[in-house]
Each structure stands twice: as C-alpha cells, then as structure tokens.
C-alpha cells in the first residue's frame, strides 16, 4: 500500500469515526456495495501474445507497452525468435466493484445535506497500480433546499439530471447490472470516458415536478464546469469552459419520457487514440450533448430505451486535423461525433428478475469507430432479502479496430532494445475484429 492510498484509507476511516457520535443528531449513515467475480474471454485478431522459446512474455497492446512487456520480462532471453500469436485469453477476477458510504443530515423540512464517498475497484486479483485501494473519491457533496416538489435546489457537487439512467448510474442496488451499459461503466472509463457522453458533476441545479392534467411534468436546469481536463493543479477550472444543460420530461401513468441537452467545451489538444497516435485538435472545442429517454412498465414487465448523441461544432482548422487522422487510417471516420444507445427489457417477479439489453456506442475518431461496439447482455437476479440481491450477467461485446501500422513496424521497439530478434507471424496493418465474452456474478448490498 502506497503512502497515498494509506492516507486515503485513513481519511475515510477518520470521517466515519468522526461521524459516528453524530448519528444521534439526525445524521444518517448508510451506503451500499457490490462484489463480483467475472470471467472475460478476449478474442482479438489484431492483438498478439509475445512468446520467446515457447514462454509467454507479454501481451501486445501498443508500441510503448510492447517494449515494456519485453523489457520487463525476466524470462526473455534477449535473442532468438519472438513468436506472435492471436490475442485470445481468459481473465478470471474477483472484485469489490464499488463501495459507497453516504452521510445525510436533514436540518429541517426544507434543508438537507448529502455526502457520497465512493471507492471503485477496491480489490483485484490481478495486480494494478493502487489495486489494493482502488479509486477513492467524493462523488457528491451537496446541500438541497426543497421548499416544494415544484422547486428544488441543489448546490455543491452532484450528478445532474440528464437522461434516465445517469442519476442512478453509480447506485448499484437500484440497477440490475453488474456491468452497466457501456458509457456508464467505470471499469472501462479509460476506453469510454463517461464525461465524453455525459455532463460531469455539476455545481447548481433547479428541478421540480409540475402536476398537470396531461401528466406530471419534470424539469431540471443545471450549471457547472466543463469536464475536469480543464482543472488546474489547484483544482479550479479557471477557464471559461463551463457547462449548462437540463432535462424536460413527462410522466403519465406508468410511462415516462424526456429530452435532455447540454452545451460545453471539450479539451482536445492531446486526444490519445492508442497505437502511439495523439491528435492535437484544439484546446476548446464546442460540444453539444443530446439525450432522449423513454421508459415504462406494464405489470411485471418494464422497459427502458435511451439514446445520447454528442455533436461537435468544428471550425475548418479543427476539421482539417480530424480529416488528416482519417486519411492516415488512425481514425475510423472523419468526425468527432459520438452516439450511444441502449434498450433494456426486464421481467420482475416478487423475489427474482431477468432482463435483456442491447447496447451500442460509436465514436468516429476512435480506431474502433467504424461500426462501433455492439453488446448483447442477458442477466438476472434473486432478491435474497430487501437489502441483498444476488446478480448474474452474461455479455458479449463485439467491435472492429483499425490498426494503422503493423506490429513491430516503425518505430520498432525490438530494434531499439538492441537484441538479435526476429518477429514472426506479425499481424499487418488493417481492420481487425474483436470480441469479449463476459460472464459475471455478484452480490449487491445496501446497508
């Protein structure tokens, strides 16, 4: 455990200990967590395993990691043939996916405060940096003023009202998933950063519900910083890159629909596309995000459909950089625009539930942006008690990736190492298919 993670653990423990005596003073402490085990089978035509004299010495991901995988291996003989095999592998892992501790205090009928501490990926059987502790954050900390259901104000740091699922995307007991719809899943945030599709935590929001003859009208308007890439070292966003947005919706009977939107800027002066490709498009690129959602239920059957579309307003210089990336084969398309869609159908019995999902995400600037990522998901769960649910889930993700240059092409890290090495069976540049089969089971607990 590093000093940093030790301090984080101490901080959380200190907060809990300090808060405990206040329990009697209307301070509520509660939370939830989700633990899971998963088996992921990767099949990527374009990937490769590095073998020397029959022993696995690394998995090729990009050129930088390729060199590190070889240099870091004690088994590598530093000479001879390096065999490349298709990257088909199976990872089995057990994991505390998420732990949240919530402190809530109700000052009176109108005023309350809410603090949500979160730890993600707390423990992994495969070693990763800080894997003992995972990622600790104050997800939300806000004051809420609710003079009536028509007017509710939030100030602080919180998840804004945008679309359907976003408000509960990190509330595991409220969702059937172990692995959430793609852009909401934090464990793949390095590949699909949620802030590319969804407004980050906001600073102020007014929302409410109006009861009318045609149904209940919901509204929300929010304001905050653009994504955190604009934050300086002092934790402040001292640029004029801010975000405004909101959602308008209607509920009638058992059905609910809404439209959402936000306007802000995206910092794209160093957009990493993998394969050692980094695009410098611009420091501030105007961005609009739109969302539509529709959900409902009839007896034990419920459904949710949601689409999110990200549109960039590029000037000619910015578009030229994107066009050049596409022409060079490092981007699947000549656009930064992104789209995400999921449909969810669920059957609920008293003690159990089953569901099926279809997810789709596409990002034209990414190497996998030709046909996007498609996911078929099936799962279910058994409610063991009001607070404990056992869940299971099977998902298959499929995609195509553009590999701009051949493995062990220029720059050749093997040559840079100075060894007498000859790669064999190296995949050429091109478009390759990949699939991931993910099987998970786990337990969600609210406490």
């Amino acid at each position: 455990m590093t000093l940093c993670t030790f301090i984080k653990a101490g901080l959380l423990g200190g907060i809990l200990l300090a808060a405990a005596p206040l329990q009697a003073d209307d301070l509520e402490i509660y939370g939830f967590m989700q633990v899971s085990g998963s088996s992921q089978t990767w099949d990527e035509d374009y990937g490769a395993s590095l073998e020397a004299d029959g022993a696995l010495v690394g998995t090729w991901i990009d050129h930088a990691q390729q060199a590190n995988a070889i240099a870091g291996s004690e088994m590598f003989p530093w000479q001879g043939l390096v065999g490349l095999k298709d990257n088909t592998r199976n990872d089995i892992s057990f994991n505390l996916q998420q732990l949240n501790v919530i402190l809530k205090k109700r000052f009176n009928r109108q005023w309350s405060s809410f603090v949500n501490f979160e730890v993600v990926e707390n423990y992994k059987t495969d070693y990763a940096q800080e894997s003992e502790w995972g990622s600790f954050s104050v997800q939300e900390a806000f004051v809420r003023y609710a003079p009536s259901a028509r007017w509710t104000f939030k100030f602080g740091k919180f998840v804004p009202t945008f679309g359907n699922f976003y408000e509960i995307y990190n509330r595991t007991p409220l969702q059937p998933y172990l692995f959430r719809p793609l852009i909401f899943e934090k464990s793949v945030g390095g590949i699909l950063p949620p802030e590319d599709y969804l407004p980050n935590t906001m600073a102020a929001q007014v929302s409410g519900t109006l009861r009318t003859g045609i149904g209940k009208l919901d509204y929300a308007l929010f304001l905050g910083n653009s994504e955190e890439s604009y934050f300086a070292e002092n934790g402040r966003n001292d640029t004029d890159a801010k975000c405004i947005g909101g959602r308008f919706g209607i509920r009638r009977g058992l059905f609910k629909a809404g439209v959402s939107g936000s306007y802000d800027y995206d910092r794209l002066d160093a957009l990493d596309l993998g394969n050692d490709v980094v695009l410098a498009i611009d420091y501030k690129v105007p961005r609009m995000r739109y969302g539509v959602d529709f959900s409902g239920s009839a007896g034990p059957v419920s459904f949710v459909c949601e689409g999110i579309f990200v549109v960039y307003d590029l000037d000619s210089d910015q578009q030229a950089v994107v066009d050049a990336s596409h022409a060079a084969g490092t981007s699947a398309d000549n656009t930064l625009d992104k789209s995400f869609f999921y449909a969810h159908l669920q059957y609920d019995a008293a003690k159990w539930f089953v569901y099926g999902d279809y997810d789709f995400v596409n990002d034209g600037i990414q190497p996998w942006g030709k046909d996007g990522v498609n996911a078929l998901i099936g799962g279910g769960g058994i409610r063991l008690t009001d607070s404990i649910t056992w869940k299971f889930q099977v998902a298959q993700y499929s995609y195509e990736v553009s590999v701009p240059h051949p493995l062990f092409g220029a720059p050749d890290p093997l040559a840079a190492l100075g060894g007498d090495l000859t790669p064999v069976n190296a995949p050429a540049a091109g478009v390759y298919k990949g699939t991931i089969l993910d099987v998970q089971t786990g337990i969600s607990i609210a406490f």
Partner: protein
Amino acid sequence: MKYTLTLLVLALIALRATAGVSVIAHPDVDAGSVDKITLADIYSLDLLALGDSDLIVFDLSDADPVREGFYAAIGKEHDKMKKLWLRAKLTGSGEPPTAVASLEEMAREVAATPGGIGYVDSASVPKGVKVLATFE
C-alpha cells in the same frame, strides 16, 4: 371438518383483507379531505405539502391487509413504492416515508407529529387525528 376449518380461516382472512382503510392526519394538517391521486402523489414523493402544511409521511413496514388495501386504493404496489423510496434515499432526492412497526404506532405517530399523515383500519381510528379519506 378440515375443509370447514380451512374455509373459516379463509373467510376470516377475506373479512380482514376487505376491512376499510382510513387515511388519517394530524389535526393541524391544512386539508379537510384528499383524493386518491393526491395520496398517490404524496406517497410517490411528488407532493410534499397539503395547503400550508409540510407533510411527514408514515408507512407500515410489515405486510398487513390494511397496508395492501391502502396501496390498492391509490393504485400503487408497495414493492414498487419501496424501489422508488430507495432511489430517493440513495440519491438524496427526497425523504422516504417514516416506517412504523404497527398500525397502533402509526396512529400514535400521526397524532403526535405536526404534518403527520398515515393510514389505519377504519374500525380503529384513534382520537386526536382527522380523517382525510376512507376507502372500503
């Protein structure tokens, strides 16, 4: 004999299940009556006040024919309401009803809490509360 006893038990259960439900409130609550839609909105956390009265909502934690009768009357299912309340609790977006262990406790709490609203068996409406609605 066995069938007679079974029928008798079923008849008693049915009799208990069809007992009327009365919606009760603290005498200070600024309303003389409420309709089913308003009650559904109150328990769905879409309505926080009646007139000038901020409400404190009570709910029975354990299954009971009176509870089931109340939710049937307002067109809701208790299991779905629990999900809605859990969402409010975990997102900080509202205050779920205060759970009470028995109808007797419900009556006591409503009578003692300004803004209190709850439901009891129509045959056991306590003193010190006002009745806002009755469902057979």
